[in-house]
C-alpha cells in the first residue's frame, strides 16, 4: 500500500463530504468533494498514478495539474498526521 491511513483518526462521509477527527487534539477537518474522492481512492488502496487517473476521468482536468494538486493535498494530509507514506 502506497498510503497508510493513520490509526489515530476517526472519519465519516456525511452528506457527500468527508469529516476527519484527529486524535488527541479532537480537531475536525472537512474535505471538499474532490478531496473526498481522493480519500475514497486511498481507502481502496489506490496508488498515486491510479488516483491521478481517476481524478482526471471524474473532473475535466489535465493530468499534470491533477498530479500537482494531489501531491499538495497528500502532503497536507501527511503533515496533519492523517496519512503515512
Amino acid at each position, binding site marked *: 500500500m502506497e498510503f497508510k491511513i493513520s490509526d489515530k*483518526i*476517526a472519519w465519516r*462521509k456525511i452528506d457527500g463530504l468527508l469529516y476527519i477527527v484527529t486524535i488527541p487534539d*479532537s480537531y475536525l477537518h472537512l474535505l471538499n468533494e474532490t478531496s473526498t474522492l481522493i480519500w475514497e481512492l486511498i481507502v481502496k488502496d489506490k496508488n498515486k498514478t491510479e488516483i491521478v487517473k481517476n481524478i482526471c476521468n471524474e473532473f475535466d482536468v489535465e493530468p499534470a495539474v491533477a498530479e500537482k494538486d494531489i501531491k499538495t493535498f497528500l502532503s497536507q494530509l501527511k503533515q496533519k498526521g492523517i496519512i503515512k507514506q
Partner: protein
Amino acid sequence: MSVIEKFNRVTAKKNIPVSIMFELTKKCNLRCIHCYINPVENQSTKVEYKTELSTSEIFNILGQLADSGSLYILFTGGEVFLRGDFFDILNYANKKHFAITIFTNGVFITNEVAKKLSRYNLVNVGISLYSMNQLIHDKITGVSGSWRRTVSAIKSLREQNIPVEIKTPLMKQNFYGYQKIIKFADTVGAKYGFDISLVPCDNGDRTPLKYRIDEKQLRSFFNHQGVFKPLENNNLNCTAGKNVCAINCYGDVYPCLQFLVKFGNLREKLFSEIWRKNFVRKDYLLKLTDLTLCRSCNLINYCGRCPGIALLEDGDIRGPWSRACEIANVSRDFNLAKCSD
C-alpha cells in the same frame, strides 16, 4: 462559518445522527448519592430483570450507526469497565472509525489499563471526581477508597496523553473546596466542568434534587468563576433527536439519555427505521414558538433549558425547567452587576 458550525448545522437540518450516547450498562461499582440511574438497576449484585445488550448486539448496532453517519460516540454507564467485553467494544468502535468518548468513575483504570486505552481513538475520557478531600468524595460515592483510585486513574490517563475532563456535580456536600479540583486539573493538564443542575432519577425519583446547591452557593459560584456571557438570540435549541441520539443498555432509542421519550427498540427494528420513521420525534422536537412561557421570558439569553429534564422534573415538555430558571436568574443578576461596575 467554521467546520464545526457547518457540521452541526448540516447534520441537524438533515437529521443525521452524528453524535451518539451509548449506555452500555446500568451496573455500577459505586453508589453515588445523586445518581440519576434507578437505584434498583445499578446494583451489580442484583439479578437483572432485563437482559443488557450482548457483545454481538452492540457490534451490530455500532455497524448500523456507522452506516447512518454517526461519527462521535460516547460510551457511558453505569460503569463501562464492569463489562467484560468493554475492550472488544472499543476495538470494534475503532474499526468503524468512531471518535470515542468514555464516561467512567475511573476506579478500574490502572497504569496498565491507561496504556491499553491509549491505542484507541479517544477524544475524551470524562471522569467523575467530587472533591479533592478523600472523605467527602468517598462519602458521596458510598465506597471507601474510590477517591484514591479515581485520582490515580486521572494521573495515569494524562501520563498516556489521553484527554481527560474531570466532571463534578456541585452539591451541598462538596461545594466548599471545588476550587481545589480546578488546581488539580490544571496540574495534570485535564479539563474540568461543574454541573450546578443535578437532575431527578430517570424513574422520576427526586432524591438527587435535595443535594442541589442553594441560591447563595449559586451566587458564590458565579462570583468565583467569572463572567458567564449571555447568549445572543437564544432560541433554546436542543439538538437531541435531530443530530444527537441515545441508546440505553436494553437497546431502547431516545433523543438523549435525559430525554426519555422512547423512539423504538433495536432488538425489534433497525436503527434506520427507528430514526427515520419515528413519528413521536416530530411531536417532541419543539421550536421556540412552541414554548409559550419561555419564548417571551426576559431570562431567555441566560437560559440552558433542557426539554427532557423539563418533562422529567416539571412535567411539561413545553414548559420551563425550574432549575434552569433559578440558574438563569442568578446569571442575569451577575451579568448586570458586572456591567454596572
